[in-house]
């Protein structure tokens, strides 16, 4: 069994990459993909912790359960996010968020 720390390192790397993507991608789709990476990193952490660190057998499923819930919520977020992207595309013919600065002042 691989120890805990390597998984945590991988998940930290995924978070960093995801944040980088969210900060730099011009396309809204790219940002959403980066956010999926971040959520994945969190879920990976949850499962790793639940398998390696727990105080009793009764809570052995806690981490996996939260990973499953995180997946469901990520799927919901992706569905809503992507329909927003479609809306934006329909209104302004682009999905690049740096072209969209309606929020300015």
């Amino acid at each position, binding site marked *: 069994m691989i120890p805990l720390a390597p998984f945590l390192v991988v998940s930290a790397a995924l978070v960093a990459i995801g*944040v980088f993507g*969210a*900060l*730099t991608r011009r396309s809204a789709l790219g*940002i959403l993909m980066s956010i999926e990476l971040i959520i994945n990193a969190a879920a990976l952490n949850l499962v790793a912790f639940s398998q390696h660190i727990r105080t009793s057998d009764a809570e052995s499923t806690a981490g996996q359960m939260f990973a499953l819930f995180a997946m469901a919520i990520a799927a919901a977020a992706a569905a809503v996010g992507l329909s927003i992207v479609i809306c934006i595309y329909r209104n302004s013919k682009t999905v690049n*968020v*740096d072209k*969209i*600065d*309606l*929020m*300015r*002042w």
Partner: protein
Amino acid sequence: MDFLPALIPVLPLLAFAVIITNGRRLGWSACLVAVGASLTSAVLAALVYSRVLLSHETLAWSFEWVRWGETALRMGVRIDGLGALMLFMVTVVGTLIEIYAIGYMAGDKTFSRFFAFVSLFMAGMLGLVVADNLLLLFVSWEIMGLCSYFLIGFYFHRPSAAAAGIKAFITTRIGDVGLLIGMILLWWTAGTLRFDELLLAVPALAGLGDAHVDLMLTAAALLIFVGTIGKSAQFPLHVWLPDAMEGPTPVSALIHAATMVAAGVFLVARSFILFAQFPAALTVVAWVGGFTALFAALIALTQNDIKRVLAYSTLSQLGYMVMALGLGAYAAGMFHLITHAFFKALLFMGAGAVIHGFHHVQDMRRMGGLWGKMPWTAWTFLVATLAISGIPPLSGFWSKDEILLGAFHESPVLWVAGTFTAFLTAFYMFRLFFMTFTGRQRDGEIHAHESPAVMILPLVVLAVGAALLGIPGSPWMGLWVQHSLDVPAYALAHHHHSNLVMGLSIAVAVAGIALAWLMYAPRPTIQPARVARAMGRLYTLSLNKFHIDEIYAALIINPTRALARGSFRFDLGLIDGAVNGMGWLQRALASLKGLFDKWVVDGIVNLLATIVQALSAVFGLIQTGRVHNYLLLASLGALVIACLTWWNMG
């Protein structure tokens, strides 16, 4: 298979689902689905009844429905002798009413919708009977309330029917809220809503002698009884029941005999442990019942609409049952509920046959002499009329006698009232019978005809039931029915047989019939019109139902409207005037202040604005309106916070 009783309400529910979704496709055959479902339920109910009778055991089956933390809510069914008898009665009478409705509703465009709602109604009633906790009972109760709204307002294109539906719904709602609050109090105090747990918990709580707990439980019992008042149409919430005549006649039969109004009485019987422990609540129940019995009978004397007379007689008989429960004569009350279901369903269906054959005329003054034209209807109707009047050996006599016996021993005042009511009952029922069936037809333009066989068959079956059902409950058979109810020990008020009570009740019944004969026979000895004139105000009071509807209108509806109008005027005159005056004053002040504003305040504001403008030129640089820049700053903030946290943790 202990879950067998759970299937009984499910079958009509399935029938409802099937009919409501496939109504147009099924057409006429919708009635086959409905009747088939309730017939199967009846067979199952007979099975359950025989099993409960033979073994005197209580069938119970439940499953865990929801669990949160330590608290679990179980749902299930529980059938004791009372429940089994009710199940049997409801399914048998319900099935007969449905068969009758095949003939009565034939040719109606909304044929299948009618059977869908009747099935749902049955499902609600059966669910209520089998429920093993107050919550499931309440759900079924509400299903029935909804269906009563649908069915009373079934001809919703008629404004009076729509209004009657709304009236029934809103009036019973008052009772429902009482029941709901009672349930909450009960849950709060006793911590359970399951009947078998209540049986243990309530006596234990009452035994504590804690005044607060007693108060809460008495309040819970009374609030539950408020539910009964609404559903079983006791005074003062009785006003919806006569108006409920707007529905099709099979619905009236269903509501008055087997289901809706019986539900209220059944509720008191089910939660009788609460009442038995707190006599104060019991007294209220008895007096409300006794008053309703007498009050409704007085109204019934003068009504001319055939269905309205029956409606008030239902009110009166329900008053008997509630009074019996209140007097502790638990078995007698439930026995009367069963016999009443049979003869009242028969009366309504007979009246329906008359109306059906008489081209939808309901005014008795236009009828008469129908004996020859509708022999089957007339004979069965006579049986039912004799039964309700309390002529031995028909069923109504035995059950009514039991109740009067209980009253005789417990409360002489109520006994006198009950006996007098029995006299009135015999009188107005035979008034109805003579006016309708004997003599000559007063409105010659209408050609009455006998109903089809599908309507006659249920009448005959019910007539046999109404005639013979009292025998097993009579003292000859050792009160067999009453014993089969598994009367709980706390409700066992057994009274010795009294020849005085029985003789007197027969005497008043015969006297009532005789008086009716004198007044309404083909050649009356006493002219009813003269009697009416002699009674003067009393007559008009009864004819106008003691003005209860008008009193409600005057006390509740009109004041509310007047209040609204008054508020509006108040608004318009005083408040608006004040506001306008204030406005004028303000304007005068404002022109003064304007000068001050212009030079002093504006100066300061402008100065501030200049400063802000200068600053915003600097800070505006980061307000780019671009998501990315915001994200970058947010992430930077998160990083800084994370660093600080780690720093603090060392």
